[in-house]
């Protein structure tokens, strides 16, 4: 059986890739992918620990995360569509209207 630490390392790797993607990419859609990547890294960690401790609560939590992520994507895509309508761009740096 693959040791839990492998899963955790993979989850950490995925999370880091997701976080870096969010921080360095300018395309809003790609940033969304980065966010999904981080969420699924967390899901992987949940599931891995749920298997190690034989506790289904971790698996249950993953379902919630997937549900919330689906809702979040719906809201997020709606926002992106609206931004595209107003700015004709999906570049994250184009929406800096709150600059002080």
């Amino acid at each position, binding site marked *: 059986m693959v040791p839990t630490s492998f899963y955790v390392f993979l989850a950490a790797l995925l999370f880091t890739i997701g*976080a870096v993607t*969010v*921080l*360095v990419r300018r395309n809003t859609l790609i940033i969304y992918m980065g966010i999904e990547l981080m969420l699924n890294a967390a899901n992987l960690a949940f599931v891995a620990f749920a298997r190690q401790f034989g506790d289904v609560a971790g698996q249950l939590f993953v379902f919630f995360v997937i549900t919330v992520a689906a809702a979040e994507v719906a809201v997020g895509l709606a926002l992106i569509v609206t931004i595209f309508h107003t700015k004709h761009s999906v570049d994250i*740096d184009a*929406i*800096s209207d*709150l*600059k*002080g």
Partner: protein
Amino acid sequence: MFLETVAREGATFFHLAPLAVFVPLLGALVNGLIGRRLGERGVALVAVTASGFAFLVAVLQALSLTVYPEGAVVPIAEWITIGELRIAWAQQIDTLSVTMMLVVSGVGTLIHIYAVSYMHYDVRYKGDPGRYARFFAYFNLFIAMMMILVTGDSYLTLFVGWEGVGLCSFLLIGFWYEMDILGRPSTANARAAMKAFVVNRVGDAGFLLAMFLMFWFFGSLQFREVFEKVPEVAQAQPWVLMAITLLLLLGVTGKSAQIPLFVWLPDAMAGPTPVSALIHAATMVTAGVYLVTRSHELYMAVPEAQAVVAVVGGLTALVAASMAVAQYDIKKVLAYSTISQLGFMVAAVGMGAFVAGMFHLVTHAFFKALLFLGSGSVIIALERAHHPLPEEGGHGHGHDQGDHGEHEDHGEHEPFNPQDMRIMGGLLRRIPVTGWTYIIAALALAGIPPLAGFWSKDEILLEAKHLQPVVYGLLSAAAFLTAFYIFRQVFMVFFGQPRSEAAAHAVESPRLMTGVLLVLALLSLTGGFLNTPWFHPFGQWLEHTLKEVEALPFDPLVAGISTGVGLVAIGLAWLIYRGTFAWSRWEQDPLQFLLKGLFDFLQASWHWDDLYQVVFVRGYRALAGFLAFAVDWTFWHDWFHDVVVAGGFRRISRFLSQPIDLGIIDGIANGLGNSVQGLALTLRRWQTGYVRNYALAVMFGVVGMLVYVLWALR
């Protein structure tokens, strides 16, 4: 008599005495407030009733006094209570005050009645009929004030009346304040009123100082309390009584127009003639004589002061009589005559002949009121002949009768002056009632027996011969001049040929006026029998108040000399004005031709006014100018006000506004704003608007929290 029985029954009328003050006061209020709506008849009715009521009250007091000669003190109100000083407003009813009440209200009522008709003409000739009510309001107020004066039981109450009548005098002298006596726009009448007021202030200052001294050394101002302490104070501090009596004399010289303060009375003739009769002849000016008589216990204690009073009176009598000789204004003659006669009275009371002085006061009130009212009748007669009122239709002389009653004086003419005796003459035929009553009064003034003036003047001369021979000489000379000037006036006004159109067509005054003249003529004829040397009820009457009264026996020599002197003077006047030097032969007053420079000197009243002008008025003006320009303008205004006050204020406000307000207050407010703004400028850089930056911050935050949690759970 019914009233006498009532008085005897014990119901005295003393408690009615306050009504003598309050009813005329009420009359003054009514006429003053709603007089304009009452109409002339209503105003006259109110005024005469009020004054007549005061006379009735006075008569009732006299009746009560015949039964209770010791009199009474009638309290009206608590007035002043300051520490030891307790002054109630109370009325002292005794034979002396009731004598004054009778004269004031009796003669006053007669003059009120006369004024009802006289003022009807006067307000129309002066062009303001609306002022009729105001005149009677002042007149009633005067009666009320005079009643306060004569009935007061303390010097302070007397002083209230003293000032009150002074006020009425001022108001009535300046009654036509916007014109002079000829009706031309001028401040002359107003200046005359002010002169009377200011000159009287000088005398009042003396009166006040006397009262201060009195309070200091006697501890009271009430007559009885003061008089009780006279012997005590006379022993301890003799100079106090001397000072008080002489200061009171200063007050007397002001109010009773004696040397040196007589100068206001001739100018006071600017008032309407009834005012001159009532206030400046019969009543107010005799207040000084009353004051000395009332204070007789003080004066009796200081013979030196008595001598001063007597000499002042004697000199005034002579000097004023000489001034009266050279006057052309019919009322000015009477004004100087009044001063002179007041001199007789003051001399009498100064010598201690109080009964004689009061007696002359009473008879003088009769015949001098008659003379003034007669002169008023002459003035109105000439006015009506000169330009009749439209309502009379008029049969005066030609050109200005009819609708336009206003008289036009052509440029080259002197303005018509109905008081100028030079335009009169021969009036006896035109206005016989006025003329004959005037002659009766003139005979009384000249001291021809058996008229009123003879008895009173004779009594004064008799006392003077015994008490003060020098004053006797002065008064005898004055008596000569008196008879001369009054018959000079009679001959100029009533005899000879008319010297003007107006005099030729003079119209006798209405019966209301001549009726009063007749009553006063009767009083002037018979008034002397109040106190003849053989039968003297007046002396006995006053004895209740004045205590020491020795009636001197009749002296044929004194009476003969005074009568002889009077007759010689009348003869001389006849010689000059009717006989050898009759007016018609000379283009001017024959006396002026005879006396030349002396006449002008007398006419200018010895240049007394000019002397005051030089000594006091000019000095006062210089002082006033110095005070106004140097002290007030340069010092107070330019320096103190502008530099010290305004400059100081400006400096303080500049200090407050510049460093304090702008520096500190605004600095705090602006500094707060600036620091907040600076902070905001620093903080706004954090708000880049780039999602990435926020995300990075969130990540650092999460990492930070993780590090903390891991470190804490170590």
